[in-house]
């Protein structure tokens, strides 16, 4: 049996479980939705919805795919992971299927968020939004792979408190809520050292209908590079014995 079929089987299984637990999908997007509803109108007085939504997308990516490792903690504890590791399925497929499913969840959440954005008055062009979603899906794969790797490496009890705290500065430094061009120099410098800023800025350009810009190119390159690096790390950790 080939690796693609194995990945597909694991993906389908995990997706079925995720869709069954609808509350989990809604809960993952709840925080950005609250920002959209309770902070968005305020932001819209000085900025635009097309500037805010890309930031909220980065937030949902970090809080949803970034915390995907929760699932693997449960599976490791209940012995499900070890049971799967004794099947002939490739370990990479076991990881990728799971990670792709997390990415799909993120995509669904992103679409929910964008739907609400349009309802509140966002006017982003469809091609730009679709391109933004492609970046989100890619980012979701990378973040979920990294999150799984961290979950398998770290003390499972520490995972939740450390990760839920750790993603907050990443969201803030991405310039999700206010563009980093408004930041003082030191904050701007730190922000440039985090990958998500480039993604957010690229998606802002896309939502503004500017496609062939250096910002978009940089955002796409950072997203792709980050995803590849995270998947490599994730695979390595997952293939390790005892992981």
């Amino acid at each position, binding site marked *: *049996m080939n690796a693609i079929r*194995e990945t597909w*089987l*694991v993906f389908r*299984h995990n997706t*079925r*479980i995720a869709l069954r*637990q609808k509350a989990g999908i809604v809960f993952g997007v709840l925080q950005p939705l609250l920002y959209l509803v309770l902070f968005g109108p305020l932001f819209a007085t000085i900025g635009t919805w097309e500037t805010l939504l890309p930031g909220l997308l980065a937030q949902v990516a970090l809080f949803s795919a970034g915390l995907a490792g929760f699932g693997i903690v*449960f*599976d490791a504890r*209940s*012995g*499900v992971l*070890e*049971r*799967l*590791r*004794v*099947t*002939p*399925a490739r370990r990479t497929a076991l990881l990728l299927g799971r990670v792709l499913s997390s990415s799909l969840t993120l995509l669904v959440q992103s679409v929910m968020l964008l739907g609400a954005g349009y309802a509140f008055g966002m006017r982003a062009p469809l091609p730009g939004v679709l391109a933004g979603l492609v970046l989100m899906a890619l980012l979701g794969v990378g973040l979920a792979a990294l999150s799984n790797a961290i979950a398998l490496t770290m003390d499972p009890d520490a995972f939740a408190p450390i990760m839920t705290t750790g993603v907050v500065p990443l969201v803030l430094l991405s310039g999700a809520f206010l563009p980093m061009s408004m930041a003082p120099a030191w904050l701007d410098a730190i922000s440039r050292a985090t990958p998500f800023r480039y993604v957010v800025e690229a998606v802002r350009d896309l939502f503004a209908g500017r496609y062939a810009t250096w910002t978009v190119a940089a955002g796409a390159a950072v997203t792709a590079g980050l995803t590849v690096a995270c998947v490599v790390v994730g695979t390595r950790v997952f293939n390790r*014995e*005892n992981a």
Partner: protein
Amino acid sequence: MIKTSGLSKTFKGGVRAVTGVDLTVEAGEIVGFLGPNGAGKTTTMRMLTTLLRPTAGAATVAGHDLVTDPRGVRRRIGYVSQGGGVGPFDPVGEELELHAMLYGMRPAQARERVAETLERLDLAPLADRTGGTLSGGQRRRFDLAFGLVHRPTLLFLDEPTTGLDPQSRAALWDHIRRLREEDGLTVFLSTHYLDEADTLADRLIIIDHGAVVAEGAPAELKGGTGTLDDAFLAITGRSLREDGEAAASGARGAA
């Protein structure tokens, strides 16, 4: 069915958990694998099931080389770990279908095989239940179903009845015996219970300090007059019963 020579595992940090295990298991045998806590039972079991890579030695398991062809080994063995592998939230029947398909079965074949396996283990009415709603004995039988759904030729059971009530234990023993009789399945089981080893196994292998220290049929080891307890005490200098109780209470504590 299993042949190892000098199988060893030294963990990072220098702990030598298994120092050189030589053992042979013939097709169709039920072999009991005994040893005090920390003797290297679980480490050996995890090496034989491809979950840990040996640091030295060689082994052929179910006709495939453990080190060079772990996927070949995985295809032909079933493994039921100590803690089991039933997730608490998902319908167990669905999990079983995925499990079967990861062995290369088509959906229809997987469904058929799952139904057949559940039927055999008297689990058919419980297929739609989630793991969290099952009793300990039912969950253990589902663990067995995961180990059997792809019809392995060799089944590894790591302390299959720890924590089960007497009735569930007896039921599980019956299932294991029937599998051997009907399918010629080879069973390699580790256990803390001497009565389990005595009634179920054709042959016992005793491990201590990371190496095999004795083997033979239960009757041979008992030497005619003594009990298996006495034999175990004489061989390892420790009573398995104390260890077993300590482990059982430890498992309860962890659960």
